[in-house]
C-alpha cells in the first residue's frame, strides 16, 4: 500500500491483480495451487511423471498427478451434471451415489448374466454402456419429474432414490457378486499399449462435449435463466419444468458414464459400498468452485477445479497415512473455511476493510 503512489505502473499492476482477486475462480484456483504446493513440500517428487510398465509389460504413465487426474474422473463427470442441476433447480441431487450402484448393477448383470465368474463378456461393452446410461437417465428422469412436475425440493425428491438406490442395484444383480472378464477393465484402467489411463481420456471427452454444449447451445443460458427466476423465464417463453427435467436427465447421463468407469475399475460392483458418500463430495466440489448452492448463475470451470481439488486433498491425506475414515474431518474444516469466505457477510466485511485501507492510502497520497 505504501508503494502505491510511487509509480503509475504499479497502479496498473494492482488493478490486474485486483481483477484477478475479484474473479470468481480466484478462491478455487488459489486453493488448488496451495494444496499442490503443500504436496510438493511434503513429497518433493510429487510432480514427477514417469513411464513405467505394468504387470503385463505394457507401458503406463506413473505419477501422483496422473493418479489424481485418474481418480477424479467420477467426481469431475458428476460435478458437471450437478452444477447444471444446482443452477436450474436451486437444490442438489443426493442420490448420485445410489444411482451409480444401480448403473453398476445393470452393467454387471448385462456383462455377466447369471454367472459369478464368466470367462467372457455376455454382451458387447457398448450395449452395457448404453443400458447403464439408460438406467442412469431413467433415475434422473424420475427425480426430474418429481422436481419439475410436482414442485418437490430436489433434496427431498432425491431422498427417495437415495434410500432405495443401493438396494435396487443389488436387486439388479440378483444378489450375486459377479466379476466381469478382464476386457471390461480397459475402461477403468489402461488400454493395453496405451500409456494414459482411459478414465482421463473419458474425462477429456466429457469435458470437451460439455464445453461444446455450453458454447454452441443455449443450455447454459436457459439453465441460468430458470435458476435465477423461473417465473420470469416462463414469461419469456421458456419452459422451466422442461429445463429442470432436462438438467436432471443430463445428470443421469453423467451418472451413467461415471458408473461405467467406476465399475470398470475393479470389474466388480458391491452396490452397498460402491462410491460411499460421493454425493457429498460432488456437492462440495460444486460449492468449492464458487457456485451458489442456491442456484442461478453457475461456473462450470469452477466445479471441475473443485472436483480436482477434492481429489488432491483426498490423495494428500491418504499419503499422509490419515485413516480413510478420518479424512472427513479435514474436509469439514475446509468446507466451513471456504464457504465462510464466500458468504456475503464476510465478503462485505472484507470489502469494508479494503475500502477503509484505500481511504487511508488516499489520505497518505494527499499528504504526499
Amino acid at each position, binding site marked *: 500500500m505504501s508503494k502505491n503512489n510511487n509509480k503509475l505502473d504499479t497502479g496498473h499492476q494492482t488493478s490486474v491483480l485486483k481483477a484477478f482477486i475479484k474473479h470468481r475462480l480466484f478462491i478455487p484456483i488459489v486453493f488448488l495451487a496451495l494444496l499442490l504446493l503443500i504436496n510438493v513440500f511434503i513429497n518433493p517428487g510429487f510432480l514427477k511423471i514417469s513411464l513405467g510398465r505394468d504387470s503385463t509389460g505394457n507401458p503406463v504413465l506413473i505419477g501422483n498427478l496422473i493418479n489424481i487426474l485418474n481418480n477424479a474422473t467420477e467426481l469431475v463427470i458428476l460435478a458437471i451434471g450437478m452444477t447444471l442441476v444446482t443452477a436450474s433447480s436451486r437444490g442438489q441431487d443426493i442420490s448420485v451415489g445410489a444411482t451409480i450402484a444401480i448403473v453398476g448393477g445393470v452393467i454387471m448383470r448385462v456383462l455377466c448374466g447369471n454367472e459369478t465368474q464368466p470367462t467372457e463378456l455376455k454382451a458387447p461393452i457398448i450395449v452395457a454402456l448404453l443400458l447403464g446410461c439408460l438406467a442412469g437417465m431413467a433415475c434422473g428422469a424420475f427425480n426430474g419429474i418429481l422436481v419439475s412436475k410436482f414442485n418437490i425440493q430436489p433434496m427431498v425428491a432425491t431422498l427417495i*432414490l437415495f*434410500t432405495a438406490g*443401493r438396494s435396487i442395484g443389488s436387486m439388479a444383480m440378483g444378489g450375486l457378486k459377479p466379476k466381469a472378464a478382464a476386457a471390461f477393465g480397459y475402461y477403468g484402467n489402461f488400454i493395453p499399449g496405451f500409456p494414459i489411463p482411459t478414465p482421463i481420456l473419458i474425462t477429456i471427452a466429457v469435458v470437451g462435449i460439455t464445453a461444446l454444449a455450453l458454447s454452441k447451445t443455449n443450455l447454459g443460458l436457459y439453465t441460468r435463466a430458470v435458476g435465477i427466476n423461473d417465473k420470469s423465464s416462463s414469461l419469456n417463453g421458456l419452459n422451466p419444468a422442461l429445463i429442470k427435467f432436462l438438467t436432471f436427465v443430463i445428470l443421469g447421463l453423467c451418472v451413467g458414464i461415471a458408473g461405467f468407469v467406476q465399475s470398470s475399475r475393479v470389474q466388480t460392483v458391491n452396490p452397498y459400498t460402491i462410491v460411499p458418500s460421493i454425493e*457429498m463430495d460432488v456437492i462440495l466440489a460444486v460449492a468449492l468452485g464458487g457456485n451458489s448452492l442456491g442456484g442461478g448463475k453457475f461456473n462450470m470451470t469452477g466445479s471441475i477445479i473443485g472436483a480436482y481439488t477434492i481429489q488432491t486433498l483426498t490423495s494428500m491425506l491418504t499419503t499422509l497415512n490419515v485413516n480413510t475414515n478420518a479424512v472427513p474431518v479435514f474436509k469439514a474444516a475446509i*468446507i*466451513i473455511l471456504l464457504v465462510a469466505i464466500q*458468504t456475503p457477510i464476510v465478503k462485505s466485511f472484507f470489502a469494508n476493510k479494503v475500502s477503509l485501507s484505500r481511504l487511508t492510502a488516499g489520505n497518505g497520497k494527499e499528504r504526499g
Partner: protein
Amino acid sequence: MLFMNKTQDNGGAGVVRNKPNRREPLTDTTFLLTITITLFIVIYALAIVFLGDKGFSKIQMFFNLFNENAALIVIACGLSIVMITGSIDISVGGSTALICTACIVCLNNYGFNFFTSLILALGIGLLFGAVQGFLVAYMEMQPFIVTLAGMFLGRGLVALIEVNQIQVDNVGFEQLSGSRILIPFLGDINRKGVFIQSKLEYGVIVAIIIVCLMFWLLKKTKLGRSFYAVGGNSVSALMLGINVKRTKFYAHLLCGLLAGIGGFLYVFHTRSGSVQQATGLEMDAIAASIIGGTLLTGGVGNIFGTLFGVLTSGIVLLVVTAIGSQDPWWPQITRAAMLCFFIVLQSVICSRKKK
C-alpha cells in the same frame, strides 16, 4: 374437498377462530397426520390378522417398536423443529456416532458414570447445535453445507478417537441399560403357557416425555410459534418483529440438544460404537418427519406426526422383514416407495392450496 376451504391454519401464528360452534374443517397438517396415523393402524391391524403367528399379535411387539426407535423419535423431533423453521440438519447421524464412541471411551477408560456420560452427550449435541446454528443464522451460510460439514466432522472424529468397534465395559452403565420397566397387567403367554409381562426400556419414557414437551413448545410458547412464523415466511416474520436470526439459532440449538439426548439413548440402547454407527440416521429422521407431515419448505409440521412417522416406517420394515422374502433389498425399497407416496401427496396438497 375437505382440505381446500379452510382457514389458513398450517400451524401459522395467530389463528382466529370465527365460529367456534361449527366443526372446523381439516387442515393440511391434520389431514397429513390423519393419513399417517390411519396408515399405521391399518398396517398394524393387517399385520396382526395375516402375520399374527410371526409375533405381531404379541403385545411385546408393540412395545418393541418403541424400544427400537426411541432414539430415532427424539432425533426426528429435533429435525422436525429445524425443518419447520425452514432449515435442515443432516449432521445428526454423525453427532450420534460421535456421542456413542465418545461416551463408551469415557465410560471404559476414564471412569465416567451414567450421569457424566449423559452430560458429555448433551455437551457434544449442544456444541454441534450451537456452532451450526451460529454459522447458519448469523453467518448466513447454507444449512445443508454447514451441517454436511458437521456430519463429516462427527464421523471423522469417531475415526480419530477409535477406529474399531467398541462395546461398553462399565458395570453400572450396563446394569442401568439392561433394566426394563415391567408393565402391569400387559403381557403375552409364551409357548409353555407362562405369562410374561411386557417390557419397556427407560429410553422410551424419555422419548415420550420429549415428544410431549416439544408439542407443548411448538403449540403454546412464543418461541415455538416463531419457529412456524420464520419457516412460513421469514420476511413477514421479520416485519412482525420476530428476531429471525435468533429464532433460527435456537432451532439449531434445540435440534443439537435433542440430537445429544437421542445419541445418548442410542448408546444406551445399543451399548456399542463404531465409525459406521447410525449411518443414514439423518435420512431416516428426515423421512420420518416428512411422512409425519412436516414440509421441508418450512412453516408446516406437527410433532405427533413425526412420532407416527417413525412408528409407521418402523412397522413397515418389520412387516416386510416378516413376510420373509429372502431378498435383502425389499425393506429399503418399500420404505422408499412409502416415502415417495407421502412426498407426492404433500406436493399435490400444496399445489391444490395455491389454486
